[in-house]
């Protein structure tokens, strides 16, 4: 390493990674239901898409987590988004493409994507 710029580049690259290892009570939580029903319906792809998109777009203070079956097996994959004030939005029948849209519209710009919300 020759310069501080290089040091900063490594820091920025690693910051998001090690940043996962801290608890921030005020962060937005994306919880993907990963019961057997959810996994069968493609929840893992949805989960990984959320994690990747949020990292790629460098969105801060968002935690991507999982839960078990929440009892709406018919609507899987189900994703719950909890805002900083713990208000909950439930998205149903999610796909990887829908996940990208939710990251872009809801998590970054704060607009709930009504088309995918549980009616």
């Amino acid at each position, binding site marked *: 390493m020759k310069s501080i710029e290089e*040091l900063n580049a*490594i820091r920025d690259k690693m910051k998001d990674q*090690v940043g*996962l*290892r801290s*608890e921030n009570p005020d962060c937005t939580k994306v919880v993907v239901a*990963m019961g057997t029903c959810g996994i069968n319906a493609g929840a893992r792809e949805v989960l990984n898409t959320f994690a*990747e998109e949020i*990292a790629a777009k460098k969105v801060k203070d968002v935690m991507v987590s999982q839960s078990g079956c929440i009892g709406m097996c018919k609507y899987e994959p189900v994703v719950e988004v909890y805002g900083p004030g713990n208000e909950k939005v439930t998205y149903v029948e999610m796909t990887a493409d829908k996940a990208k849209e939710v990251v872009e519209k809801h998590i970054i710009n704060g607009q709930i994507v009504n088309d995918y919300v549980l009616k």
Partner: protein
Amino acid sequence: MYRSHVLICGGTGCTSSGSAKIEEALRTEIEKNGLSSEVQVVKTGCFGLCALGPIMIVYPEGTFYSMVKPEDIPEIVSEHLLKGRIVSRLVYQETVTDDGIKSLNDTDFYKNQHRIALRNCGVINPENIEEYIGRDGYQALAKVLTQMQPDDVIQTILDSGLRGRGGGGFPTGMKWKLARNIVKDADQKYVCCNADEGDPGAFMDRSVLEGDPHVVLEAMAIAGYAIGATQGYIYVRAEYPIAVQRLEIAINQAREYGLLGKNIFGTDFSFDIGLRLGAGAFVCGEETALMTSIEGNRGEPRPRPPFPAEKGLFQKPTILNNVETYANIPQIILNGADWFASMGTEKSKGTKVFALGGKIHNTGLVEVPMGTTLRTVIEEIGGGIPNGKKFKAAQTGGPSGGCIPAEHMDIPIDYDNLIGIGSMMGSGGLIVMDEDNCMVDIAKFFLEFTVDESCGKCTPCRVGTKRMYEMLDKITKGNATLEDIDKLEELCYYIKANALCGLGQTAPNPVLSTLRYFRDEYIAHVVDKKCPAGVCKSLLSFEIDPDKCKGCTACSRVCPAGAISGTVKNPHVIDKSKCLKCGACMEKCKFGAITKK
């Protein structure tokens, strides 16, 4: 891109309780479940709660699994990592509430802690320099090399109020200032790190080296820049194999990344670090003995002055700081002296790491702001004393320190208060004792250690501590007179005044402090020939209460000396001339008929 990180403690505590097997099982199960690209397994340093090891934390949820066994791993992987269902029965029960799992930071053990020296321990992989850099590692070195003059660095450390964490509590900035200025035109100076942690019960330096080795390297380079040194040495005890191995890895990585070596960050500053292993002599933790040992000679102290700042290693100006002291430096540089000085008491700033041991629930490592009371550390963070026993004393400062009785539990802990009550901070070992500990026996234990570890160079320590040990032995055997106690005390003051180095001068402290607070126990041994705590064997006698004895013969069958006689269904009797006082009969008796006096 990993969506989840599983952190496993790879410190010495958890390694000895089997964390390597857990890690292996975890990697296998993750592979089996096809999660290798989604879940990252990270081996970290110590989390602090060693009593509950092996420990594993799953992020982003921050779920804290304790006392994990290899056979639990398949369930954790398939339930938690795959399906998102936390395995509550394996989680640290303090975090389990009626509404689910609460944050680790809200538990009694962690909520009163403030982690500066330990900030990366249990968070990063110590064998990966990039993780350290990701937590602002080497930013402080970059800052001093490009934005600060050496005198500014020293001033910042002075203003922060940081004092040596190895025991003495000498102001770190002052040490640096002397080493910078005292000798003009020195052709070579040295920066040394004392990692020869030898106090029984203290293991914070080991945990920093194992969990965050780069912080020490960075701080030593900063010190080198401040005093004008180009070479550093870390003197680490060979009994810390994990720490040694991680230091070697860290030094090599830092060299590879150009963070040690020539012209760091393209500046004129060059600095490198070598490792030197100690062979297990306690005295080599004393600064002059440590340097003598690095030079390749027998580790013996030498008189001061000249102080190391003037003539240290190889007769060159040298600074020597302890591991924990260094671990504070980068944070002080990045956050400023005022930030650090805002924590702690008037004369003791910042935080201190304590190694909790002895009769306490949460054996482990805690970091609290200076000025926290002993009561908070023992009762809240430490979880109190097991088995409903009563607190008797806390021993701080190892063989150089003393015992703090219950009456001083509410004194804010800092350097000066501890000295005021006859103990000392030392490196931060904190051994808790309950009513079952005999204070004379404790004093004897520490003296035995000192006698064993005395290097023998000066008479007060070599001969004096031996005589002290003999007097203590006489007391615990019930052969001493009151005059012996007076002689013992007189000898203590003589050794304190005349020993060559700090170890000899402080060796009488365990005796002096127990004499000060627990003189009645000494007197009970001498006058009444009794050990109130029931520890000193020579003064014990075992008796069978004939009214309670059912004549079951269990005691006579277990007695290794054949000292118990009696017939079935009739009260038994102990022959005191044959009794070895091992206590086996008392453990075996179901009727509480055997008493120890």
